[in-house]
């Protein structure tokens, strides 16, 4: 696979810092940020720094991974409800024992290397979540 540098660069702020959009009309937040509120259709949106902590809604341990992630297998991915209610999907990291995972666990966002593109040498960074220390 070839990752052009432009793609991860365009989305770096929202992906590195967990920046979403808050709708001034209906008050709901969404991530990733869209040009129009997906709930009410309003264009009156403002950037918002989302909370970096949340709870696990669900998680899964993936053994059948795409080809460029073969060295990452098994991948642990999760759906997280951030403390303001916004839902984010992300890989989990720093999991020594996957059987220790439980829905409802507290997790926190951390900056991590996501994938490396062998062809152009791009390293894509982003946010993963890890169990809040002391909660496992």
């Amino acid at each position, binding site marked *: 696979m070839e990752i052009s540098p432009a*793609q991860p660069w365009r989305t770096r702020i929202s992906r590195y810092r967990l920046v979403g959009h808050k709708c001034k009309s209906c008050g709901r937040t969404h991530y990733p940020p869209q040009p129009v509120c*997906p709930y009410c259709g309003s264009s009156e949106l403002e950037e918002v720094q989302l909370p970096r902590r949340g709870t696990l809604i669900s998680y899964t341990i993936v053994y059948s991974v795409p080809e460029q992630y073969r060295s990452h297998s098994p991948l642990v*991915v999760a759906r997280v409800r951030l403390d303001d209610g916004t839902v984010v*999907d992300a890989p989990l990291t720093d999991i020594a024992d996957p059987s220790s995972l439980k829905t409802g666990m507290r997790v926190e966002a951390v900056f991590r290397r*996501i994938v490396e593109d062998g062809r152009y040498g791009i390293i894509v960074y982003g946010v993963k979540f890890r169990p809040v220390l002391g909660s496992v």
Partner: protein
Amino acid sequence: MSRRVFVAGVGLTRVGRNYAKGLVDLAAEAARKAVEEPGLTPQALIVSNLLGQLLDKQSLLASKIASSLGLRYRYAVRVEAGQASGAHAVITGYTLVASGLYDSVLVVGVEKMTDYPSATVTASLSTTLDSEYQAMYGLTPASYAGLQMRYYMEKYGVSRDELSEWPVLMHANAAENPYAQFRRPITKESVAKSQVVADPIRVLDTSPVGDGAAAVVLAAEEALREAQPRGTDPVEIVGVAGASDAVATMLSELDRLPSVALAFRAALRRARVDSKEIGVAEIHDEYTITAMLVIEEMGYADRGKAAKLLAEGRFRPGDKPTLNPSGGLKARGHPVGATGVYQTAEVAMQLRGDFPGVKAGDTEVGVVVSSTPQAASTAVIVLRRT
């Protein structure tokens, strides 16, 4: 709208690994059978295919197939809506005939998945997720099904054993279907012991990778009168609807597929059919959990209860509705972009009475519910025996 639209011919290829046949070969095989039945030459071509641009490096697939099938100069386009491409292609063909633009349309769904290793195919299927925020992080459609399945099992107290009824039923149905990829019955034990794909999803919860093509000829009454049909009564498409949603339902709870409920209700309204009248349904069971959620969104089970109804013996051949007598995506197979056309052909054959496998009980009204694992796109087609 407008004119009545009929399914005048169907053609299927057996789903499986077919190294000797490419996209055009498979399309030609299905198309020939579909066109032979009514004996007319279609005026337009709609192709459904998901992975051709990625794996075969082939764009303009409809143009390529049209000129390969003796349909040079005809209106020809490809429809893509993820795993729901096929049913959306049928809807597109339907609108071309219903509007009066064309009297007959050939719809061909075709997919090649087996030329490449599964890790490559998985990466291609991940294009149905958000490329910047999900696929780039290594998320896959199977990992979403894993999130859905864990959430569902915990929220509703549904066991692995209860969910295993579905793949067992699909394999039992497919054993009679000459077009099915898998014709071997399986047991609940083998489902529970099969390899973990994305915990708790096991291999026997997932639809297989396979090549295949299916075709239907849609025609107005005028075209049918001029043709020399082979003797089976055409089946009418009486209602269609589609709905879209965000890729991977980041906007919904993990146990909800809102576009399925919306499209299903809209199609029934247009068809003037109540869900109780449906005798046979071919629904999107890309994963076991997908089937459970689709059944619940269609209103055939309360939330969290689909697996329990199945365990009690519901939805089997003879029940109303009979679900996936073809064996479904799980066992008939899922050549992704073609699947919705397979489902349309299968329901049409059930209503005509000549489906070569397991027969549904009541075959007056049938429905196709095609979607994607996270219901980012749903297409519903209601058919009625004439």
